[in-house]
Structures are given as C-alpha cells and as structure tokens.
C-alpha cells in the first residue's frame, strides 16, 4: 500500500492534493464535495486588501451620494442596522468551513501594503483557520520604485502578519522576482513557514475592435507547471520552509513532478474548476498507480528527489538548461 501522506505547514495531510484558492471554497457544499473526493486541505478564496477597504468605501459612497441635497429626497436608500461586508462574510465562511469539514482550512489574504487591514490575519485565525496564506500581489508600474524598496515592503508585511498570528503562515509569491532565493530567504526569516509558487496573474487582453482592455480568466495548463517546478527544485533544501506548487497541476504526472521537485503539496485550482471535484479520486488513483508501477512506497520518499540539490546535474536548473533546450531544438531532424 502506497503512503500518500505528507505534511505542510505542520499540518498532517492524507495526501498532497490541496485545493488552491478559488471560488470553490465560497460554498460549504462545494468544499464538502472536495473533501469527500479526497482533497487533503483547502486554501480558501482570497480576502483582498482592496475588498476590505474599498467595499466599505463604495457602500458608504453610494448610500451617501445625493443625500441631504434635495428637500424631497433626503436619501435614496433605506439604512440597514448592519451590513455584512466582504471581510465579515469571509470570516463567517472560515467558521462555516471549519464546522463542516474535517480537513484543514487555510485562509487566504491578498494584499501588498502594511496597515490596519492586516488585522484580518488574526481575525481569520480566530475564526478557526488552521493556517494562513498571504498572497503578495503587486504589479509595479512606477519607474521610481526599486525592487529593493518593494521587496523590503513585502518582507515587512510578512513580518507584520506573521507576528499577529499563531497559526502557520505561508506566502504565495510572484514569479517576477530578480533574486528569488534571496527574497524567499528574507520572507522565511520574516516568519513564513511555507512558500507557495507561484501566483498566476490574470493578464489583461486587448479588444482591438473597440480599442479597450478586456479581462478574462484563462485556466492553467500542465505546461505552466515548468516554472514553479524549476524554482521549487532550486529552493528545496535551502530554506526552513515548506514549499508548495500551484499553477499547472492537472495530472498525476504533474503531482509526481511537484513532489520530486521538493514540494510538500501540489495545489489545484484550474483542474478542479474545469473538471469538478469528481476528478480527484481518479487523480489520486493515478498517482498511486504510478507509484506502484515505479515502486515508490510513499510520497515523502520522492519529495525533493529531483531538486537541484538531489539531481546529478544541478546546473540543469540554471543557465545551462537554457543552452540545452536550444541545443535540443537545433538537433531536431
């Protein structure tokens, strides 16, 4: 019998398949289906810094706008005693998921600046989350902002959040970091117990007829696994933190590769959105099949087996890898 269990952020998981942050955690019923299908932990959808601040400001703006400006219409909306804004709903959902699931629930915060909103880290903890994932999402557009300044700000944010909570903190990283190992090191030093590679940015598209920017959601494919695979392989063994791969995990092979690179867990979002929770038993079965066929006894056995430290040719993960790819291209008939 193959042993699929793993640990992540100090949590004992029955297998390495974790549901990544996605709308699937917005409903208890969907989350339950994931659990029943075999998912070992759930990272909740993200509570955004903007959501915490702007939802409140927006509600205020539109309830207030036009009020006390005309003798006949001193307001345009009835005033409720209370409003359950995004953050409140989020905390309620943490509680509801914890109440209804036996697998770990990992909260998710998404933001970039230090400030009052980070107290939601503690509130998510208090609502029952087993761990917290902090998503550092920032697109730089200001030429005067240096990478040094940005990274320092993000490290400070991690420190601020980690000091506010007792549950373990994982940090979800952007792939666009010049010196990822150094940055990862600073993040871990600031208190992160885990690193999640990588955040997928939803890239805007152009409508060339209307000359407008359009936004649409494209799900990942297995091809996207390469990037986190490489970096987890590089980071494995160099940090006192658990690594997780997200982006491009769709098949059993993807899961196996993730484990071999050194990840403790492989996170799925696009695959689940595409195929539903019913794909999980098959995926787990395929992983077991593969392990059986290749005589692996446990997941832990393979974790990190193909990391940079473990492979025969560590340079394969560095620039030489690039040369080799080009070379292999040239050699094609």
């Amino acid at each position, binding site marked *: 019998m193959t042993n699929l269990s793993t640990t992540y952020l100090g949590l004992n998981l029955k297998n390495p398949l974790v549901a990544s942050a996605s709308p699937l955690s917005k409903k208890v019923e969907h989350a339950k289906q994931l659990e029943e299908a075999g998912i070992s932990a759930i990272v909740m959808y993200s509570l955004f810094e903007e959501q915490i601040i702007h939802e409140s400001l927006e*509600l*205020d703006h539109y309830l*207030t706008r*036009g009020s*006390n*400006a005309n003798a*006949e219409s001193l307001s*345009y909306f*009835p005033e409720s005693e209370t409003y359950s*804004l995004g953050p409140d709903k989020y905390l309620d959902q943490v509680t509801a998921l914890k109440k209804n699931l036996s697998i770990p629930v990992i909260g998710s915060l998404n933001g970039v600046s230090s400030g009052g909103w980070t107290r939601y880290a503690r509130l998510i903890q208090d609502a029952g989350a087993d761990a917290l994932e902090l998503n550092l999402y920032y697109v730089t557009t200001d030429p005067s902002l240096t990478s040094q300044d940005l990274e320092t700000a993000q490290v400070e944010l991690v420190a601020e959040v980690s000091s506010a909570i007792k549950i373990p903190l994982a940090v979800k990283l952007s792939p666009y970091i010049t010196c990822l190992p150094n940055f990862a090191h600073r993040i871990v030093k600031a208190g992160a117990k885990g690193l999640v590679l990588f955040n997928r940015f939803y890239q805007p598209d152009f409508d060339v007829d209307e000359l407008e920017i359009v936004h649409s959601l494209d799900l990942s494919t297995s091809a996207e696994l390469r990037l986190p695979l490489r970096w987890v392989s590089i980071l494995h063994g160099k940090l006192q933190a658990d690594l997780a791969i997200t982006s491009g995990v769709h098949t059993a092979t993807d899961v196996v590769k993730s484990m071999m690179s050194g990840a403790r867990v492989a996170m799925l979002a696009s695959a689940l959105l595409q195929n539903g929770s019913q794909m999980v038993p098959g995926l787990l079965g395929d992983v077991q099949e593969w392990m059986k066929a290749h005589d692996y006894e446990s997941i832990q056995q393979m974790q990190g087996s193909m990391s940079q430290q473990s492979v025969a040719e560590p340079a394969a993960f560095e620039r030489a890898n690039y040369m080799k790819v080009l070379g292999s291209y040239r050699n094609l008939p």
Partner: protein
Amino acid sequence: MKSPVITIDGNEATASVAHRLSEVIAIYPITPSSAMGEFSDEWSAKGRKNLWGTVPAVIEMQSEGGAAGAVHGALQTGALTTTFTASQGLLLMIPNMYKIAGELTSTVFHVAARAIAAHALSIYGDHQDVMACRQTGWALFSSGSVQEAHDFAAIAQMATLKSRVPFLHFFDGFRTSHEVTKIVQLTDDDLRALIDEDLIRAHRARALSPEHPVLRGTAQNPDVYFQMRETVNPFYEVTPAITQEAMDKFAQVTGRHYNLFDYFGHPEAERVVVIMGSGGETAEETVMHLAAKGEKVGAVRVRLYRPFPGDYFLKALPKSVKSIAVLDRTKEPGASGEPLYLDVVNALVEGHRPNVKVIGGRYGLSSKEFTPAMVKAALDELSKPEPKTHFTVGIVDDVSHTSLDVDASFSIEHEETVRCVFFGLGSDGTVGANKNSIKIIGEETENYAQGYFYYDSKKSGTVTMSHLRFGPKSIRAPYLIEANQASFVACHQFNFLERVNMLKYAKTGGTFLLNSMFGPEEIWENLPVEVQRDIIEKKLKFFVINGYEVAEKTGMGGRMNTIMQTAFFAISGVLPREQAIAEIKHAIEKTYGKRGEAVVKMNFDAVDATVENLHEVKVPAAVTATVTRRPPVPAEAPEFVREVLGQIIDADGDNIPVSAFPVDGTFPTGTTQWEKRNLALDIPVWEADLCIQCGKCVMVCPHAVIRHKVYDKALLANKPATFKAMDSKFKEFPGMAYTVQVAPEDCTGCTLCVEVCPAKDKTQAGRKALNMVPQPALRESEAKNWDFFMEIPDLDRKLINPSTIKNSQLLRPLFEFSGACAGCGETPYVKLVSQLFGDRAIVANATGCSSIYGGNLPTTPWAVDAKGRGPAWSNSLFEDNAEFGLGMRLTVDKQSEYAHELVAGFEKELGADLVKAILGADQSNEAGIEAQRERVEAIKAKLAKSSDSRAKDLLSLADNLVKKSVWIIGGDGWAYDIGYGGLDHVLASGRNINILVLDTEVYSNTGGQASKSTPRAAVAKFAMGGKGLPKKDLGLIAMSYGYVYVARVAMGANDQQTLRAFLEAEAYDGPSLIIAYSHCIAHGYDMAHGLEQQKLAVQSGHWPMYRYDPRLAEKGQNPLLIESKEPTIPVSQYAYNETRYKMLTQIDEARAEQLMKEAQHDATSRWTLYQQMAAMHYENGSEKKEN
C-alpha cells in the same frame, strides 16, 4: 426616572409614537411626510415592536387614495391603524375620511401640512391641505413644534379612542417635520400609562366579524339619511372635553401640560393674536417678549381646531382683550375670511363678546417665513384706528394692498443663543454634518439645539443652507436665522463667493469660516469686493481651511462634511476642543461604523488633518479687490428674467412684490439659458481630428449642453479665436462646416458624452473625440464660443431626415440646462421628444422628477426655437397625468375638426386650391407640416380684416390645422402605480396620444421608494429586504389591447432603436406607449456608466427591447419585433454593479441569493414568453398560434 432626551426631527418624533401605537400602517410617499412612512417601514422591517409586543404591519399602497381605503378596511376590521400624508395626498383621502368619520371610527392620521397645488405646486408647508378637511367630520389637532408633534401623536390617540371621532394630527410641513431639535422622549411606559386598553378592546369589539356579523355602509334614502347624519352630534359635543381630559392626563404622566387653547402674554392683554401650528411658537415668544416690556399683548395658540370649541376659546381669552388678529396659514379665495378667522368671529358672536374687534390675516403660505417682527406687525395693526380687516403679512402685496409693513430690525433672539449659518453644496455633505453637530450639541451638552435646513430645488449642484441655533435657553424659533444675526457663517464651497451673498447673515463681531484652496496669506486677494467689505465693516474674525486638500489627501473626495464640522467645533468653542473631537469621532463611528472601518478611518483621518490646516486670516484694513460678485443673470436677459427670475436666483425672492408675478401661474419658457450655474469641474473638449460626426454625444447629453451643427462655412469669418470647426461629413450637407460645441457654464461634468464617444485616436487609444479637461481655464473662451455657436442658424427642419442619430441630433433641443442630476438617465429621452416634435408639441407632465427639473422656479428648461415655437408644457397632478394629456388631445382634435369645418366654408374667400390643400394636407413629414403652416399664414392674411364671426373663429383656431403632437410624460411611480388606472383608460381610448414612461424602477423624486416597477431583488425604501415580487410588465399589459403602439427602449443599449420608436410612436395615429429605461441616482452607481449599465440590462434579459406596432398586424404580420438578442449574461452580472441590488447581499446574503435566482427566472421566462409572442402567426389582422 428622568425621561430620555433625544435630538430628532418632527417626522421621526411623530412616527416613533404612531408606530408604537399601531397594528396596521398603510403608506404612500409624499413630501414632506414620506419620512414617517419610511421610518415605520424600516422599523417594522427590522422587527421593532409596538407597545403590545407585536410588529406593526406596514404596506405601501399605490396612492394616498389607496392608503386611505386600506386604512378604512383595516379600521373596520378592528386594527389600530394609521397613515401619514400631506397636501394632494390628504385630498385624495378625503372621500374615505368622510366614511371613517361617519362610522365613528377611532384613528389618527398624521399630516405634515403642506401647500396645495393651485397656480403652482409647492412642497412646502402651510395649512391649505388640512383646512380642506375641516368639513369631513374629523378632529383637527395642531402641534406646533417637534416636542408637541411627539406629544400630540399620543394625545390624539388617547382622544380618538375615547371619543370615537377620528383625529387628524397635523404639524407644519418642513418647519416642524424637518426641524431637528432636542426633545424629551415618550417612553413605552409613558405611553402605557396614557393609553386606556379597554378602549382599544372596545374599538376591536366594534369591528366587522363573521362571528358577530353586522352590516355597515348602507345606501339610504331621503327618509332617513338626514336624521342619521345628526346622530353623531353628541360625540362631537364631548370631543373637546375628552381631548382636554387626555391633555390633563398627559400632563400628569409627563409634566408637559397643554390645553385646547393656550393663552400666553400679558394677563390683561388688550391686543391678541390667535394662531395655530409652528407660528404659535413664534407668536408665543414674541408676546412674552413684548409683555415683559409691559405691552398688553397676548397670543392664543389653537390646539384643537375641529370640533371648534368656542366656549373653551372664550375661556382662554382674557376678558381685557379689545382686539384680535387671527392669523391663518391658508387661503380661501373668495371667502369672507379664512377659516380660523371665521371660527373666532363666530365664537365671539355666539359668546356675546361683540365689543372685541377681529381682523384676519394670512401668513406663511408655502413655508414663507413667519418671524417675531411679523407677529409684532399684526399686533401693531390692531393698535391702528382703522386696521386692515383682511391682511397679509410676510409679503409685499402691492396689488390688493393687503400686506402689513414689517420692521425687519425687530428681533427677540436670546443673546445667549449662538446662531450659525452654513452654506454647502448638496453633494458635499454639509447638511449631514450639521445634523450630526446638532445631535452632538443636543445630546452631549446641556445646551438646547435646533437645526433647520434649506435646499434649492435643483437636483445637481444644489446649494444648501443649514441654520443652527444652540444655547442654554430653550429654543423656540421656528424661522430662519435672519440677516445680521449669525455669530458664525461658514462657506463650504469657495465658488459660492461669486454668486451668494452669505455675509448678510453675519452679525458684527461674528466669525466667517471659508473653505478655500487659497491659504491665509493669499486668500484676501482672491475675495470679491463685497466679501472683503463685509468682513471689514462687520469686524468679522476670518478663518480659512483648505478642505479640498484635506479631503483629497484623506480620501474624502468631494465631501467636506467631517472637515468643516471639525473646523466649526474647533473655532466655535461650543465644547472644549478635545471633547469636541472625541464627540465628532464618536458620531462618525455611530453613523458610519456599520459601513465598515475603512469609512470610519477615512473620516477620522479627515478630523485629525483638519485642525492643523485651519488658519485665522489677518484681515487688512481696506478693501483691495476689484472683482465683484457676478450678477444672477446677464444684463442681456429679457426684463422678466432680469427683474423677477434673477431676483429669485439671487436668493431674494421673498422681497418680490405681488405685482411682479403672472396672475395665473403662466411663465415664459426657455429661461434656464440665463441661469449659469457653472457646476462642472471638468468639461468635454472636442477634438475635431478624431470626430466621426455621429451625434451620439449630443443625443445622450442629459442637459443639452453639447450640440452639433452643420452650417455655411462663410459664417466662420467672424469666429472667436478658439472656436473649432471641420468639414461636414454629412452626405446630405456637402461642402458645409461642422462643429461640436459645449456650453461650459451649463455642463454638469457628467461625462456621459465622453463615455458614449466611439471615436478613438489610433495612436493613443485613451484619447477620444471628446475628452474631459479642467473647466476653469476654458470657462471664458468656451462661453464665447458657445454664444457664437448659438448664433449660427439651425438647419431648416425640412432638410433634416431625422431617422438617423446624427441627423436627428441636428434638430435643436428645446429642453435644455435643466436642474436634473448630473448624468440623469431620463432627460435624454425628454430632450429627444423636444428635438423631434418640440415645435408642435404639448406636454402633460406628471408630478415627479421630470416636473421638478422641468418646471421648478426660478428657471425652466423647456425652450423655443428661432421662430419662437417650442413645447407648451403643463403639470396637473401626480395621479391624473394621462387623463390630463388626453384632455389636451381632445381639444386639439376637436378644434382641428372645427377649424377644418370652418375652412370648408370659406372657399370663396380663400380660394378653392388653398382650401383643398389645407383639407387634404399630408403632414407626415416636416416638409408637409411646414407647407401647412404656410397655408395657415395665408388664411390669416386673407381673413385678417374679415368681420364675419366665423372668420374670426377660424382665425382663433387656424393654428390647429397644423398637426400637433401630444406627449404625456411621467415616471414609473405615476405610470405603474398612482396614475395607472388613468393611463390604462387613456390607452384604451384609442386616441392619438404619446405616452413616455421614464422608468427608473423607483420613486426617484421622493427619495427611492419602491414602485410596482421596482424589480425583484432590488432594495428600495418600503422594500428594505429586497423586493420579493417581480416588476410589473406594463408593456405586456398595453400590448394586450392590440391597438396600442408599445416600445421598450434603452438608449444606452441601442440609440437607433430608441429613435425609431419615438418616430413611430408619434406617427402612429392612436395611443402609443414608450417605456424608457432610465438609469438613476437611486440605483447607486456612478452614472457615468449609465449607458454601459443599460447595455448590461438588455444583455441580461432584464430589459428586453421591442417595438409592438399594431400597423403590422393590420398587414398580416406579427406586430411584436423583439430587438434585443437572447440574454448573454446572467441578471446578476448586470444587477450587482448597482448598490440597490448589491446592498441586499450585504444585508441578507441568503435572501439576496434566493431573490436573484428568482429574478433570473423572471428574465428567462419573460424572454421565453416574448419569443413565443413574436413567433405567433398573424393573418388578416388576427392572431393565430402556430402549431
């Protein structure tokens, strides 16, 4: 235990008692009483219970008539029932009021008394409405202050239960209903001690029940009706005593003692005024002031006006009284005196006091100010040997010479009372902040406090005035702070300085706080002459704060509320600064806390940033400015505009004499062009190199401030330097010039034109043919360009085929520069009517937003073309607009028919050809109409000198030979609810009328109450938990007649379909109904995206667009053409962009989810139904279902 003290307004004070003493409440919104219904609905929705522990049932009805009917039914079946209303609403209740009184039914109606629409509508307060009910058999019970409104609501209930006579409890609309002041609250225990529960059970025992059936409401004949009408007399005889008894009991419980008539003043008064309502407060204070100085004067305040207990009145009146001035806040044209006057005269006659001289006067109509000086003027009049027996006070009547001279310098304001006047912009939160300040002062200090707020009638760029009084003495001053009386004047918007004379309110040595982008060093040089002069002459302490910068930095945007409030407390010293800041923050938490901590933080930041930005200005010794305040209207405006409307714009309408006004409410049109409000911070600037001349910007502009013209290039010879032009791209008008021009001082900066502009720069996609640019630097040059543009002649209408957007928009808008909200979704449709048909249109406009922005003084937007033709407009009522418009059609048809008959008889004089041409004229297009106009001129010329009476008749009617277009315009509150019965009948009449429903899906004008048009899942007042039932399908109902042209349009989704619908509707020789999606401020999103949101409404299936043309059925075709595609997005994707839907997810997510599911089902099933209808096979004009 000490009773709690609260700071609230009269509406809330009244509703808080009424709600606790009722089981059923039937409501309908009408200003200024709407808030009582809103409070009741909100409280019940939140589960607040009445005195007996059950939540009152609150229901919104379709009209006040409906509310009265529901109340009548609820009363007949034994519920403790109430309603709230005013003005025309109360008039609609009168038929039921007779019934309720005739059946001796205990109930209280609470009325915020308001003017009646006569020569004009007015939302403001007087007693015309309640006086119209004095014959109904109801007790009329008058409270004069917020405290009294609170107290009398309870006393009225006590008295009606005992007497069985229904009570109409009234107080002055706005003055009392909207005044915020500190009062002692009636607790539940107080109310329990007051209400006799046995009487409630007796009320229930009289109810209809099949367990002990009776029959009520018989029809009677001459033999018995009269006698039975007399059976009730004993009940009326004892009602005054019962009411006094209730007042006495009330005094025992609360310590506040009232009488049916309360006398105040000198115990041996010789001259007395008699008065009721809030004016009684002023009268009481004035006579006490004068009596303290030894003057033998007094005032009788009337509490119970019906039944009028003359004996009680005489008892209250000192024996020493020699003369009485009775003051009525109403007018009864043609009567021998106003009602209270006549009752007093009668009481004196019947009471054998013939030696008392009585005179009667009118005051305070439509909330006209009533001040101590006016009370004194009435008393002074009594001292004259020959006083005016019928007078007016508060106006200058130079026609009938009824008015009394008033000494404006007379004031009785307490020295200790601090008086403050604040000028703000509607959108900057000034009023809200001042309401908070009053609460802080009233509830956190020992001071008494009073706040009253004044708004102009515009819906965009409103100027608000807040009048605050506070001090250690009780404040009983129900009138505005007068000139030279305010110790604190604050101007929250710098640009007001150029148009508002605010420092006239400041008293010598007072303080002036100005929000200014200029600091303490630069400000002086940027003030107009008049402001500098007042600051120096009145020795004002002068403070500036750059609130704009603080707001910008703290994220407050345009809201100055918290900043200016903090500055006020910091300067005024009403509380120690630290405590004041703590209280402001506490109030912020209380007000905004539930909206999330980010809002609280933003406001806290603003408070903290204020004090350090507040500076006292060192005032120079001399006036140095050269710039003066701008005149209210330009010198070239017509005389009436200059002399009358200009004075109203200048906030000095109170001083216009009677003789200046039209006698019948008739005004010239096209006057908004003279009122330059200069609201926009940014205006669109046209880039000719990108423009494709599509005209979409012109079409969507809510205020007709962006226009395009095609014209002779030669006209450019004298163009101003910055005037832009390009070659016309219109294939119909080659070789001509083309310009898009913006009116910089009329634009509101809404950006709809930029949003709709499809022309983008190929090298820089963000640049369009229209881009928003800061206005100040462009103001003067673009104003000149606009004047030049307007002088360019419009193209001859005959040359324009209006069937395309770009061509239709060459037609001059005859609806311009209205006071509608920036980005209004209604006015583009109204403007389109004016462009397409305005020179021959008559408009019947239902009361509502469109009648306010369409017809509220000082200036009105319906305009004329170069030939002086334009829409003739009128507003009748809210409920009767369809019938009103039908009446117009009947006249047009009848007089046209008669004119045709007359023409036929003048063949000899007119010539056979002309007669034939007139009688057979084809007026289906502009050329045909113009040709007919020329023929009419020919008739006039040929018959001008005829002495034949039929010829004179023809001359007076000849204009009716030209086709007229009758438009019936109103909102969904009218069309779906209160006016639906009439609308249905008018549609059924088959007459050639055009009905335009501006569907905002909510009562917009009265502040967002649900109508039957409100869609499922949307939150509105009276539908706090989200409307649980679907929107009524008015179009489907109209289609069921088969002969009504029906179109459902959304300009933002398909402007061409809209244009086609308007043209077809007008061309259809029968009833037409256009239901137009109108985005609205009450939907709760940035109206710059209104057009985009309209698209989403259509794409989601919420708003399917169609035209139903009965003419197609006559041709054997299906008349229904669905013109939107099958829904491509879920309703939620459209809906959740809007606060009205989104807030339900924040209030009750589960319900929101359920209702949205049902709303989706509504859209889907409606789509399916329409598809089926559109697929039906028609043959020979009859429909056959396809198998």
